[in-house]
């Protein structure tokens, strides 16, 4: 160190021989310092910088400005140029990124559902973009592959939380493109009154109708009780179950009434019960309590854009599979 320039010291001596030099700052350091000052001036010219009372400098007009296309609330496109800001920059980035995807989203929007499904190029886009949309928005409930959490599925149902399987070919709310699109846009919440349509079933009647429900899908049941339950199921003044589950028990999609004749148990864990008494028991509890969820399946019409919903509809119908 000592060889650098002058031998000037501060004149102060510590511990007999410890002296401090007063060398000037190294050149490179000094220039670095001047450069930061020059940089700051350039920055002031390009970016919002100095406060001025209730406003602030926005950079020199025309230097580093941002151009973007805005969409007004009534759908008009307006071209704008403004000083740099992260929010304006985001508008420009979004324009550019949507420019690339736009072509594809426009195609999705303009093509009928059936034709999208037949077009391998479009389906490749649906699969890729749909996967991201589905994991960000739907997978928390329906799981990544759409398997959902069902009462009758011991693998996925440890929580008592329910969301239907979207990968099978059973549709509670209808499996056509239009019905799936309606489901996603507006959300769905099934409602089933407690103790039958009239709300007046006795414990014994409920046991009977539970046995009838079991008979519909060939589960073990008591035939005498089921015969009495048949009457209750179909009588609008008693169970009134036909209103939503249909005279044949296959379900009325517009009411969200489930198909009770297949062995798919979505809300009530019938298949998890070892014996007849257990199966009747869980059904008894369900029919006594009814189903009264709050916004079970949220509405996405306000969160997602129409073309995103259309894409998801195809993704659910064709990629996950089982659409009708």
């Amino acid at each position, binding site marked *: 160190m000592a060889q650098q320039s002058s031998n000037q010291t*501060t004149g102060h001596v510590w511990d007999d021989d410890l002296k401090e030099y*007063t060398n000037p700052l190294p050149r490179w350091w000094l220039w670095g310092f001047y450069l930061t000052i020059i940089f700051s001036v350039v920055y002031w010219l390009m970016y*919002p910088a100095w*406060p001025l*009372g*209730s*406003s*602030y400098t926005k950079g020199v007009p025309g230097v580093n400005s941002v151009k*973007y296309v*805005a*969409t*007004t*609330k009534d759908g008009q496109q*307006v071209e*704008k140029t*403004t000083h740099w*800001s*992260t*929010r*304006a*920059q*985001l*508008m420009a*980035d*979004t324009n550019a*990124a949507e420019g690339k995807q736009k072509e594809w989203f426009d195609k999705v929007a303009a093509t009928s559902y059936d034709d999208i499904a037949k077009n391998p190029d479009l389906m490749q886009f649906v699969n890729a973009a749909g996967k*991201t949309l589905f994991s*960000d*928005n739907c997978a*928390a*409930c329906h*799981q990544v592959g759409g398997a959902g*959490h069902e009462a009758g599925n011991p693998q996925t149902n*440890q*929580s*008592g*939380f329910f969301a239907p399987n979207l990968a099978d070919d059973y549709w509670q709310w209808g499996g056509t493109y239009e019905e799936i699109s309606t489901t996603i846009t507006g959300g769905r919440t099934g409602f089933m009154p407690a103790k039958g349509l009239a709300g007046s079933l006795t414990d014994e009647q409920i046991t009977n109708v539970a046995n009838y429900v079991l008979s519909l899908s060939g589960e073990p049941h008591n035939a005498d009780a089921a015969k009495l339950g048949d009457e209750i199921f179909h009588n609008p003044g008693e169970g009134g179950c036909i209103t939503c589950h249909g005279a044949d028990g296959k379900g009325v999609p517009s009411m969200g009434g489930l198909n009770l004749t297949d062995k798919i148990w979505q809300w009530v864990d019938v298949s998890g019960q070892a014996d007849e008494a257990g199966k009747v028991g869980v059904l008894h509890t369900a029919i006594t309590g009814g189903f009264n*969820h*709050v*916004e*079970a*399946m*949220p*509405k996405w019409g*306000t*969160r997602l854009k129409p073309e995103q919903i259309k894409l998801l509809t195809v993704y659910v119908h064709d990629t996950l599979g089982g659409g009708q």
Partner: protein
Amino acid sequence: MKHDKIERNIGLMLVLILLAISIGGLVEIVPLFFIKDTVEVVKTADGKEMVRPYTPLEQRGRDIYIREGCYLCHSQMVRPFRDEALRYGHYSLAAESKYDHPFQWGSKRTGPDLARVGGKYSNDWHVKHLKDPRKVVEGSVMPNYPWLMDPLDTSDIAARMKALRTVGVPYSSGEEEYQRNVQTFGEEVAKTLRIEDAEANLKEQAQTGNYDGNKADVTEMDAMVAYLQVLGTMVDFKQFDDDYFATFR
């Protein structure tokens, strides 16, 4: 040699360091209080403020959120970048946290940002998820919060609102302030901001909202889910041009 004096006098050096640093801070922070555009104007077509203070129940949920340290893993600020917009939705506005004391912006994201989680999931999902996240989301590292099913202490809500009122949150005390809130937020919202009715309002919202799936009692879960479900839902972005909030910067 002037710096001689400073270097040999530690007291003086301390004062001067403090001075230098505060100038840096003050120049950055103070102007924001005077610049008009810092907090965006967010009003409905008929001139009512869209962003309102939390209802008593939501406010209690927020307090529990802070008590449980949810902010250690969750931020509440969607930044103005494209990948954030794609995942979470519209970037957060300054206006959206103007009644937050303290705000929950943060930057630690072990879990996802929650600024726009309101309305994304059902109440039922939140309840199950908070009790045991792994039961609904495989492999989640979020802790269990089963004790949120405990009853909520509602007795001190008026005091909590009074405290927030002293730092500028417009909870109303008395008729005059109530009328001012009717002007600003409309009658429906203004009613929920009355300190006089705080406890009654809290219980009513918990019961009608039925957030925890049990109408009979008011639990901490009711408060927490009510809070989560309102996050990021106050501003209706469809009522504005899509670059409206860019014009404030």
